[in-house]
């Protein structure tokens, strides 16, 4: 029997095989959203826990990777909703994180804070679209929404961010 068929029937060995095959991919996606290695590891386990519990709902003809990514995105979203953190990105995680000398550090912190205060679903769409430069199609698939809805979320994120920055007297 095929691996996905066995997984759909609740076979633990098949689940382990899929876990080992996809854990890196799921982690890589989550870390882009939550931007913290430890949290991303925990959420990877949480994602696979949800996957395991939902095995009966998985159609073996479907794309396991895409399904896992969607569940991972929702696990990350749930995390962002409950844990509104204001922690700076660890230096070793970011590419080219050197601050721009032209922009004052305090201003950068204000912008980051304003961004972290955006509603989680807008923040995720903007992080994936603007910072990670994922395609709208990929974001839409991961969030389980249409491309139009992704564009709308990014538009609203930009508008809200601009309004917040205006309130803080920070002009981008």
């Amino acid at each position, binding site marked *: 029997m095929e691996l996905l068929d066995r997984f759909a029937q609740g076979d633990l060995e098949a689940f382990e095989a899929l*876990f080992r095959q996809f854990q890196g991919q799921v*982690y890589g996606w989550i870390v882009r959203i939550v931007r913290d290695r430890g949290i991303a*590891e925990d959420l990877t386990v949480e994602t*696979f826990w949800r996957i395991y519990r939902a095995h009966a709902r998985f159609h073996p003809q479907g794309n396991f990777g895409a399904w896992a990514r969607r569940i991972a995105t929702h696990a990350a979203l749930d995390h962002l909703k409950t844990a509104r953190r204001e922690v700076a990105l660890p230096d070793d995680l*970011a590419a080219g994180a050197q601050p721009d000398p032209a922009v004052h550090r305090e201003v950068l912190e204000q*912008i980051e804070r304003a961004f972290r205060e955006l509603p989680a679903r807008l923040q995720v769409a903007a992080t994936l679209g603007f910072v990670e*430069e994922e395609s709208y199609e990929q974001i839409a698939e991961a969030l389980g929404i249409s491309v139009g809805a992704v564009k709308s979320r990014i538009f609203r994120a*930009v508008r809200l961010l601009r309004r917040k920055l205006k309130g803080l007297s920070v002009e981008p």
Partner: protein
Amino acid sequence: MSEANDEEIRTLLRKVIAPVADRELKRDLWPQMLGRLAERPAQVPWLDWALLAVPAIWFFFSPEAIPILLYHL
């Protein structure tokens, strides 16, 4: 909102929040997963459900009993 404005915000965000460079998982998470699978969800004993069901059924069929019970509590 113009595309130029979007680009401005995009550039600014990438200055503040740089893309994640290291997306590689450094260790196997299967042992953690096994631990999670071993956790058993808290189970409510059937007797507790039965004890809850008795007053629920009672109140459903004779709602006038609710104030009497509240008086005696």
